[in-house]
């Protein structure tokens, strides 16, 4: 009985942290039932993750922007514009792909810093500054694709980013022929690292006499997360394995998660979001931080543009439309607070998956696009209401 009581207590205390995982789980379960299992099929999950990629990287960057109490509306068309630049660089300038990608990423960072300039130097609201960017980049895409229209990208390496999968281990084709072995191994390694990390963390906390989860709950948590990772790995291994998009997204989330939780820079970002005046008086250079956060947002916009162009194997005149709103919605669904100072990049990743699962599931069910927008809007509203109400309850 005490186990159930502990579980209830833990869930209640950490409802904000676990809420999104639970929501994602419920949404996936419902769609699996309503589509008679098609939703959870390896092919669909693999597609879903690849589609989530370009929104997820934007959502990660947007998380930091919202944490420091700003917003960036220009990211969608900046992504589209830079995708077009990448295509032009390869098709017309004949630059190799390994030059094009860093070049475009650097341009993205520059674009972010340009948006940051009026915000940091003149105190202009980021809503206005980035709305100007939205219009400018919208025009810029049309301008660069004016003569050509859609630009087809012939480069296989580039297109693999959005469509390709990691290679399997050579020479073991006979063993488990239907499964992608390297994916399975990576999944197992991830689970192993997770378990070791958690156990070490718990030991460390115990050494400082901090409150830790009871042993039963702790094991339950390990089993639950491991099972989830294991399930996803199994599903992916049953199709083509890990896609390059998923690898890139995981890398981005990993790096940003590390920066936000473990580094001085991350601390400064959350401090500025929590109380800009106090942060300034604590010797934090708030202006510089605005450049860093918007610059990183621009770079991730470029990455998003590359992922999207690569997935379509072309640059189109409408690329990037509404990406910014998808990213903002994902961040809010993922628990970022509009009041600033609160939000995790992992939460935003989950937020992006929730939103994409909704689209994917409703598409499979044949629900009309008009109704899909209504449902997604309702989920966004529900997520934010849930977030605000649990926060006030937490005080």
């Amino acid at each position, binding site marked *: 009985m005490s186990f159930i009581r502990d579980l209830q207590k833990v869930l209640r205390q950490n409802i904000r942290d676990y809420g999104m995982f639970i929501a994602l789980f419920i949404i996936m379960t419902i769609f699996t039932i309503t589509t008679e299992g098609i939703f959870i099929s390896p092919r669909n999950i693999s597609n879903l993750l690849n589609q989530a990629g370009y929104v997820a990287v934007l959502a990660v960057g947007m998380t930091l922007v919202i944490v420091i109490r700003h917003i960036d509306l220009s990211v969608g068309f900046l992504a589209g514009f830079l995708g077009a630049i990448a295509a032009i660089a390869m098709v017309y300038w004949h630059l190799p792909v390994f030059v094009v990608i860093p070049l475009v990423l650097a341009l993205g960072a520059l674009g972010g810093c340009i948006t940051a300039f009026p915000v940091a130097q003149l105190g202009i609201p980021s809503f206005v500054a980035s709305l100007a960017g939205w219009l400018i980049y919208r025009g810029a895409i049309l301008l660069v694709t004016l003569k050509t229209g859609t630009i087809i990208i012939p480069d296989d390496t580039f297109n693999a980013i959005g469509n390709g999968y990691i290679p399997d281990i050579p020479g073991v084709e006979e063993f488990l022929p239907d499964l992608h072995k390297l994916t399975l191994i990576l999944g197992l390694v991830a689970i192993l690292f997770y378990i070791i990390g958690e156990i070490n963390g718990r030991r*460390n906390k115990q050494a*400082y006499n*901090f*409150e830790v989860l009871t042993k039963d709950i702790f094991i339950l948590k390990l089993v639950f997360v491991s099972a989830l990772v294991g399930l996803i790995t199994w599903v992916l291994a049953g199709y083509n394995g890990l896609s390059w998009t998923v690898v890139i997204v995981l890398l981005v989330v990993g790096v940003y998660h590390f920066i936000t939780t*473990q*580094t*001085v*820079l*991350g*601390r*400064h970002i*959350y*401090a500025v979001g*929590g*109380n800009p*005046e*106090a*942060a*300034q*008086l*604590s*010797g*934090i*250079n708030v202006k510089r931080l605005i450049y860093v956060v918007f610059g990183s947002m621009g770079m991730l916009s470029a990455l998003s543009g590359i992922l999207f162009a690569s997935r379509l194997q072309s640059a189109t005149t409408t690329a990037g439309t509404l990406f910014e709103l998808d990213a903002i919605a994902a961040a809010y669904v993922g628990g970022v607070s509009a009041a600033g*100072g*609160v939000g995790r990049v992992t939460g935003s990743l989950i937020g992006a998956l929730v939103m994409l699962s909704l689209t994917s599931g409703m598409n499979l069910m044949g629900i009309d696009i008009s109704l899909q927008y209504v449902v997604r809007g309702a989920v966004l509203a529900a997520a934010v209401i849930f977030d605000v109400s649990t926060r006030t309850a937490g*005080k």
Partner: protein
Amino acid sequence: MNTPILEMKNITKEFPGVKALNNVSFQVAEGEIHCLVGENGAGKSTLMKVLSGVYPHGEYSGDVVFGGEAQKFAGIRDSEQAGIVIIYQELALVPEMTIYENIFLGNEIKKGFRVDWNETIRRAGEALKKVRLNTNPETKVRELGVGKQQLVEIAKALSKDVKLLILDEPTAALNEDDSENLLNLLREFKKHGVTCVLISHKLKEVIEIADSVTVLRDGKTICTLDAKKGEVAENVLIKHMVGREIDRIYPGREHRQSDEVTLEVRNWSAYSPELGRTILRDVNFNVKKGEIVGFAGLMGSGRTELALSIFGNPDGYRIQGEMFINGERKQFHHPQDAIASGLAYVTEDRKGDGLILIQDVKQNITLANLKEIARRSVVNNNAEVKVANEYKTSLNIKTPSVEQRVLNLSGGNQQKVSVAKWLFVKPDVLILDEPTRGIDVGAKFEIYTIMTRLVEQGMSIIMISSELLEVLGMSDRVYIVSSGRIAGELPIGEATQERIMQIATN
């Protein structure tokens, strides 16, 4: 005495943990200028907020009788309807609107469903004539100086058929000409039968203008003095305002004299582009090693601005003058520079710009010096917990763990977290701005003990405080700040409440 227009009887108002007003009685006769004086925190503003309905009927106990009728104001609207208008120290004008729009804001003259702008402008012109402000009513308020803005506020009050006009430190931000002008205007109103209540820290002008004076201290009415009987004099007022004994709440300490100057500021002036006026004029002071220097003065005298201008100038004042730390000339462009040179500043408003309330104790403590616990920019979480726990023990911060969010702590413990944060940067000079505001006596004593320990270890402390007893109880030397200048310096042996008050109100 004429018939009273206002009678407040046995007013008591409590805030959690504090009795702001304790059985206060206050009587104003019709047609007089009545001054209300008292130290910071004596209860003047609270009393006026009870009167104006900011604290509605039911949130206080006692009776308010105005114009012969018992009143139960539920809000400012009610009190204004009865004819009571308050003009606050922070002006409540909309800078981007014109004078006439401001004067009739919330009280628009209507013709059918539309606002009658022509009539509005005409009547605004009349109101401006009454306050002798010779400015086009179509001017934007933003373009006016503080003195003229004050007059616009008064014109706004007059447009509402005011019977009792209350001015809360109207001359605090004015220069001498504007102040004189304002006082003359009040005398004129008196002739026309408007009753005025004036809250002021400037005793000279109180003596000049008052028909009677009520003194508040610690939330109680001390006395009401009548000018006609010759009862209003500076020494009398000061005696009634301070009239307390030093309680034994200060740790005893030896006043030691060191000749080593840690911080010296020379000919320091600052202009605030935001306020559009000079906020510090020709300030000179120094702080020696192991010394607590008290900065006394009234609220708004420029002490916090002085601290900020030294501490890297985050508000972007235009500064002239020189600063030396340990004999070396310094110029700071950002608080970062000030911290690096050994300054630390515990702000006056710990919730507003001191702490990050949604973060936990350890994160607040380490924020200003993260590099100390980071290797190659990666924060060592275990080292952080260790540091935070050390301060938790040494400053006796009462919290279940250092992972508790700061907003769940009491005021005194929040203040200790603020102090811990700045001790962790290991400063040479610690600036404490109102270090014990809003915390209970026990926590105050602990803060004082910490301060004593720090100066014994050789740190220098600048203590800005509006509590005279605290200044006298803790300082080795006292500077008195008034209107952005150092109005006086007293060694602790010569400092008394009366002397300080006299210099501060001059």
